């Protein structure tokens, strides 16, 4: 039996695979034909095979429960891929490169001359109140003037097809391992389609990451020792920390494995004694990094790490303090930054945003809470938000108070009707909303992953894609439909 795409419900949202009128979009033709030929039963069988593979490969993520402690759950993957045409992707890629470049210039400027503040482009007051500005980082020169070596930017597509940047994650963004694992699993369950569809590979991320990290080593170190620093097995992203260390062939260290000597050099405890560490890809938050400088009660960090970093004896990626640009209020200034530092227009637009810190905008937000999304400036993972159209009167009252109490901490945006894509659900294939998190590596050059991690809201009509809140994921295909590629494959 073939899949009846004519029954696939049309909606007001943009669909990634099926165009208006039920015809597949050009880059998705090969995939849709393949799926149709498989039929619904076979598709369900392959989904089961994927679930089994994920379970036995032990691809997990950790969720916290107030009662049960942390629980390891199998990673949710919907096997129908999300497809983006190569030419569209190239434009997105250029937009992300431009953005990462401007963000790094902004952070470096903020911790040195603050020209952007002096020139009146970025208000001084916003900086003073930023929760992620680290005064301890002022005046420090990280290698290559780069602070946010790894950035995960969330992209969404509106009803008219426009791709917006929703936020930039510059602290310890996660998800890239799932992007890589999703591909492995989908290759296992759909081997046939990879031969014909012109799908670009994603596998070179770990080696690009490793090369970027190695290049950060202090001058004069030939064979740098690179380690991944994890908070440990109970962290929700532990799977990823371990995965990346494995893929890069470097040590996965915890804070207790490392020590900073009186010589301000970082050492790790090995079976042959103390061994010097040159580059740390840290997945521990700023405030837990060094009890000498930040939270004194942290047991996850390394005492003296900031001393070693300041002395230039170790490189930290991302650099402490990079999160200053992770603030949602700072986010609203990114197009202005691109203009200011690069003298270019932003290729990718921001979602239009209202700053509660500005009196007139705040009044507009408070008057229109029922139609807006309100976001705290410094949270991630979708926590602490108000989804206006779905909120109760009591919730709106609560947010009115919260905003009035601390306007700096909130921005508001119109609800973007996220694009949808065909997704396997009980009883067939239905559209579900999704976003995309590509990862951008900034070193001597700026590289973007081929596609990224597609997260999908598994509940009908839901816009919440976070895996901690019931979201799923998809393999993301950047598809080259050009004749050359098809020829090379045939």
């Amino acid at each position, binding site marked *: 039996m073939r899949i009846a795409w004519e029954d696939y419900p049309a909606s007001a949202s943009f669909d990634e695979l099926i165009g208006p009128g039920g015809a597949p979009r050009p880059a998705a033709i090969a995939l849709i034909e393949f799926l149709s030929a498989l039929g619904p039963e076979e598709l369900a069988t392959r989904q089961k095979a994927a679930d089994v593979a994920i379970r036995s490969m032990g691809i997990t993520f950790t969720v916290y429960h107030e009662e049960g402690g942390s629980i390891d759950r199998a990673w949710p993957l919907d096997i129908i891929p999300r497809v983006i045409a190569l030419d569209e992707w190239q434009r997105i890629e250029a937009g992300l490169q431009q953005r990462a470049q401007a963000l790094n210039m902004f952070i470096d400027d903020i911790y040195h001359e603050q020209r952007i503040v002096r020139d009146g482009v970025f208000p001084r007051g916003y900086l003073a109140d930023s929760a992620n500005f680290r005064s301890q980082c002022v005046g420090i020169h990280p290698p290559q003037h780069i602070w946010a070596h790894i950035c995960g930017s969330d992209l969404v597509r509106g009803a008219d097809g426009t791709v917006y940047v929703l936020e930039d994650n510059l602290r310890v963004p996660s998800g890239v391992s799932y992007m890589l694992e999703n591909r492995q699993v989908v290759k296992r369950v759909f081997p046939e389609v990879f031969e014909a569809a012109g799908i670009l590979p994603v596998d070179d991320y770990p080696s690009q990451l490793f090369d970027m990290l190695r290049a950060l080593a202090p001058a004069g170190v030939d064979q740098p020792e690179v380690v991944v620093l994890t908070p440990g097995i109970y962290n929700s992203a532990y799977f990823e920390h371990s995965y990346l260390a494995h893929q890069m062939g470097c040590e996965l260290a915890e804070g207790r494995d490392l020590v900073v000597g009186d010589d301000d050099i970082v050492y790790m405890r090995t079976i042959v004694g103390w*061994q010097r560490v040159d580059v740390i890809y840290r997945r521990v938050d700023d405030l837990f990094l060094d009890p000498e400088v930040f939270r004194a009660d942290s047991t996850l960090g390394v005492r003296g790490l900031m001393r070693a970093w300041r002395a230039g004896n170790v490189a930290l990626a991302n650099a402490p303090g990079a999160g200053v640009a992770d603030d949602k209020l700072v986010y609203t200034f990114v197009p202005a930054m691109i203009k200011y530092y690069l003298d270019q227009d932003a290729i990718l637009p921001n979602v239009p945003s209202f700053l509660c810190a500005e009196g007139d905008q705040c009044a507009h937000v408070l008057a229109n809470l029922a139609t807006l999304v309100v976001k705290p400036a410094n949270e991630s993972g979708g926590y602490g938000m108000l989804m206006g159209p779905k909120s109760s009167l009591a919730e709106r009252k609560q947010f009115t108070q919260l905003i009035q109490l601390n306007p700096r901490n909130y921005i508001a945006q119109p609800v973007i009707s996220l694009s949808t894509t065909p997704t396997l659900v009980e009883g067939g294939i239905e559209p579900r909303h999704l976003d995309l998190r590509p990862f951008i590596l900034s070193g001597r050059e700026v590289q973007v992953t081929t596609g990224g991690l597609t997260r999908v809201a598994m509940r009908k009509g839901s816009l919440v894609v976070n895996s901690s809140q019931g979201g799923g994921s998809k393999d993301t295909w950047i598809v080259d439909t050009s004749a050359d590629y098809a020829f090379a494959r045939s």
Partner: protein
Amino acid sequence: MLSRVADNLYWMARYLERTENLARLVDVSAGLMLDLPPRLSPGWQPLVKITGNDSLYAEQERDYSEKSAVKFIVASAKNPGSMMTSIARAREIARTVRDILPREVWEQINELYLYVGEHAAEASARRTRYGFLGRVISSTHALTGMFEGIFNEGDALSFLTLGRNIERADMTSRIVDVRAAAMMTGPSAAQLGAFETVLWMGVLRSLSGYQMYRLKTRERVYGAGVVRFLLADEQFPRACVCCLRRAEDVLHRLPNSEPLLRRVSRMRRAIHHTRFEALEQGELHEFIDRLQVSLARTNDELARIYFVGHSALQADVAPILAYQSQAQNDKQITA
């Protein structure tokens, strides 16, 4: 290699080996009960004793029935020495060192963990027991094969090999100790005479050693012969001396291992020179006791040298750098 990682690998190997040994023990004990007349059957108590948790057992179970004992040894999450606990710990550790394990190794451990969790009840029913235990044993064999077949030689493999062999030597010595005690003393010792051969064959089988014993010794199965074979044989991989020799081979390749090497080779020579035929049961027990204390000290010494040592930071730096450049030279030569 990070000390913490070495520590974890060592214990992961110990827990995996323990999982296998527990499966062997249950399998062979169950077989033994079928061979002996009920009045002479040693019952399930010695088995609980071998796993070293008899007092805990007394707290949790009422009698030494087959069902209670097997459940306690295989499936109990409250028994720190059970198969379930062992494989769960091995998996938990594997998760923390996953970055250095080949993917197949992690998947195999994960699958074994899921399997034991879902099928442990099958060990209690006689009809399904053999299939369940057989699968556990062959899964751990597959793991040993992977360590041999797809794991780089080097520090990681060294600590895995150490863990496996020390656990194995420990378990073999426990089995010999408890079985010897059950057979040589007690009220029914005299009546057991006729069944002595059967019992010692069971001990050999629990360690997959029956055929190897026959091939190697070309003599009938008898108590002192089996004890000598299981403790002192240099070639049977589950014999204590063979395990210790393998541990020595590994230690030779690790830095700073001199004190450990001295201890292990002293143990090995002591076993080698013992005349088991001349030992009374009490003396054998004392001998094995000393062996186990020495194995425990080896364990502590390993921890001191490789896992938690290195407290004096600066003093340690110089020799390490020497080792490092040595390692780098090696790399260049092999590259």
